[in-house]
C-alpha cells in the first residue's frame, strides 16, 4: 500500500539544501570581499595619498576613477574569494583552514581597521592645539562659570516648559500603545509564518518598521515641524512614530519568545486563532509589554528634550533660544532642571518596572 508520496529521501534533500546554501554564502563572501577591497583602495587613495602625501585641500573627484577602482576591486575580490583565503570567506565560514590563509585574512582585517582609524582621525580634524589653546580655555571657563551660577529668574517659565515636555512624551507613549500592539502581532514570526500571505504581510511590515526605526526621532521632528508647523505637536508626532516602530520590534520579539506549550494546549481544544492569541499568547506578554512601555516613556522624556532643540516644543526649544542669545546663566538653570527630571524619571520608571514583576 505504498503511495508515491512516500518516496522521501530526507538525507539527499538536506545535502542538496546544504550545497545551495554554500553557493549563496560564497557569493555573499565575494561581495563582501569586493566591498572590502574597494573600501581599502578608496581610503588609501583619497585619505592617505591625496590628503597626507600630496596634502591637497580640495580632493579631486571623478566617477570614472571610482568605477575603475570598483572594477579593479571586483576582479581582486572574485579571485581572492575563490581562493578561499580572503576575509569575506573567513567571515562566512568558508575560508581554508590553513595557517597562511588565516594569516592573510587577519593581516587584511588589521589593515582595514588601521586605515579606517587613520581616515577617521583625519575626517574629525582632531587637534590637541585647539583643545588646549589659551582663548579656547578662557571661553570654556566663561561658559562653565555661567552654567554653575544658574539664573533662577526664569524658573517658572522653565518649569512650565519642562512639564510640557513630560506631557508630550507621555501622550506620545500612550498613543503609541494601540498601533504598536496591532503591529507587534503582525510582525511576530511565530504567529505569521503559517500561510504565505500572512508571511508576506509580516515581511512587508518588518521592512517598513525597520526603515521608520532607523530614522532618528530628531529627523522625524524636522520632517513634522515642516508638515504640521513648529511646536509640541510636531515633537509629539515625531516621538509617536519612532516609539511605534521601536516598540513594535520589542513587543514582537517578546511574542516570538513565548512558551509554545500553552499555544499547543489551547489550539488542541479547537480554539480559533484569535482565541489562541487571547488565551495563550496575551497572558504571557502583558508584563513585558507594560515594562517596555514604561521604559519608553522615560526614554521619550529625554528624546523630547532633544527634539525641542529643532523646534519640537517644550524645554528643548527654550534651551535653544537662550543658547542662541548666549545667555549662559539661563542655559545653566535649564540644564540643571533637565538633568533633575531625567534622573527622577529614570528612578520612577525603574521602580515601577521592578514592582510589576
Amino acid at each position, binding site marked *: 500500500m505504498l503511495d508515491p508520496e512516500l518516496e522521501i529521501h530526507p538525507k539527499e534533500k538536506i545535502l542538496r539544501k546544504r550545497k545551495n546554501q554554500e553557493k549563496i554564502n560564497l557569493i555573499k563572501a565575494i561581495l563582501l570581499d569586493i566591498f572590502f577591497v574597494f573600501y581599502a583602495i578608496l581610503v588609501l587613495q583619497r585619505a592617505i595619498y591625496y590628503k597626507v602625501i600630496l596634502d591637497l585641500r580640495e580632493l579631486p573627484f571623478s566617477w570614472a576613477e571610482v568605477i575603475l577602482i570598483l572594477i579593479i576591486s571586483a576582479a581582486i575580490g572574485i579571485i581572492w574569494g575563490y581562493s578561499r583565503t580572503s576575509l569575506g570567506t573567513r567571515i562566512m565560514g568558508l575560508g581554508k583552514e590553513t595557517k597562511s590563509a588565516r594569516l592573510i585574512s587577519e593581516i587584511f582585517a588589521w589593515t582595514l581597521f588601521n586605515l579606517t582609524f587613520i581616515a577617521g582621525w583625519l575626517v574629525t580634524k582632531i587637534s590637541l592645539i585647539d583643545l588646549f589653546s589659551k582663548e579656547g580655555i578662557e571661553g570654556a571657563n566663561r561658559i562653565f562659570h555661567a552654567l554653575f551660577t544658574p539664573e533662577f529668574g526664569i524658573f517658572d517659565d522653565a518649569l512650565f516648559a519642562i512639564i510640557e515636555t513630560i506631557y508630550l512624551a507621555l501622550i506620545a507613549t500612550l498613543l503609541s500603545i494601540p498601533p504598536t500592539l496591532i503591529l507587534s502581532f503582525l510582525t511576530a514570526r511565530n504567529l505569521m509564518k503559517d500561510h504565505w500571505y500572512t508571511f508576506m504581510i509580516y515581511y512587508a511590515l518588518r521592512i517598513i518598521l525597520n526603515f521608520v526605526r532607523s530614522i532618528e526621532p530628531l529627523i522625524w521632528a524636522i520632517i513634522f515641524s515642516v508638515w504640521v508647523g513648529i511646536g509640541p505637536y510636531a515633537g509629539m508626532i515625531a516621538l509617536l512614530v519612532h516609539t511605534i516602530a521601536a516598540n513594535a520590534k520589542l513587543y514582537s520579539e517578546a511574542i516570538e519568545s513565548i512558551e509554545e506549550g500553552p499555544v*499547543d494546549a489551547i489550539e488542541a*481544544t479547537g480554539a480559533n486563532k484569535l482565541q489562541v492569541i487571547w488565551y495563550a499568547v496575551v497572558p504571557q506578554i502583558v508584563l513585558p509589554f507594560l515594562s517596555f512601555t514604561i521604559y519608553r516613556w522615560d526614554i521619550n522624556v529625554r528624546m523630547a528634550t532633544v527634539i525641542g532643540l529643532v523646534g519640537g516644543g517644550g524645554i528643548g526649544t527654550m534651551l535653544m533660544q537662550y543658547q542662541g542669545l548666549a545667555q549662559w546663566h539661563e542655559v545653566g538653570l535649564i540644564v540643571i532642571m533637565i538633568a533633575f527630571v531625567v534622573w527622577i524619571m529614570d528612578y520612577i520608571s525603574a521602580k515601577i518596572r521592578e514592582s510589576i514583576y
Partner: protein
Amino acid sequence: MSSNVIVEVRNLHKVYPSGTHALKGVSLNVYEGEFLVVIGLSGSGKTTLLKCINRLEEPTAGTVKFLGKDITHIKGKELREVRTHIGMVFQQFNLIKRMNVLSNVLAGKLGYMKTLPSIMGNFPPQCIQEAMKNLDIVGIKEYAYERADKLSGGQQQRVAIARSLMQSPKLLLADEPVASLDPATSNSIMQYFEKVNKELGVTVVCNLHFLSLVRRYATRVIALKSGEIVFEGLPHEIDEAWFKKIYGEEAEEVEIR
C-alpha cells in the same frame, strides 16, 4: 477487539523541516473505549504521533482517520470542529499560568464558543457549572480561584485533565502526563485517567515511560522505536526479551509503584 475503530492511522510519515524522519510508516487502530499506551525511548516519535492525530503537526505522508473521516489534510473550521472532540494533556501541563484555575478549565470550551464572548470571558452559567463539576471529578474544586501557577505539579495536571474534559472528548491524548511528577503523584494522576476512561467512557491514548504504570493501566500497548512500531500487544506480553528489544540491550527495568 471487535469494537469500533475511533482512530485509524495508515502509513504515517513525519519528516520535520530539520530533516528528522520522526515517523516512518506507522499504522495503527485505536478502538473505542480502550486505554492504549504508547511506549518507546526518548526520541522514538511518541509525541509526534499524538500531535499528528490532532494535527498539531502536519503529517508528511499517510492518512489519519477520526471516526471514519479522513482528517489528514482538513483545515480551518473543519479541523477545529474535529479538535473539539479530542482532548490533549501534556507533560508540562501547559496551563495559562497567570489565569486562575477556573478560567483555565473554561478554556477547554473555547472550541464551542463564539470568538467575542469567549474573549470577553462571557461563559454561560452552565459552562461554569460544568467546569466546577469537572474540577470536582479531579478533586480540586476548592482551588478554582487560585492562580494556576500557585498549584503543585500534580494539581496542575489535574487542572489540565479538567480542561480537556470540558471538551466532552471522545478521545483523550496524553503525552507523558506523569513524566515530571513523583511516583506517588504519578499514580494518583494515572488513576484519574483510568476514571475518565472507565467511568466517562473516554478512549485514552497515553504515552508513558514506566512499564510498571503501563502494566497497571493499559489495556493495550504499542511500542515505537525510531519511528516504527516494533511491538503491539497486551501489557503482560512485554517480557524481558521484548523489553530489551524496545529499549535496547543496556536497559534495565526500574520499578515505580
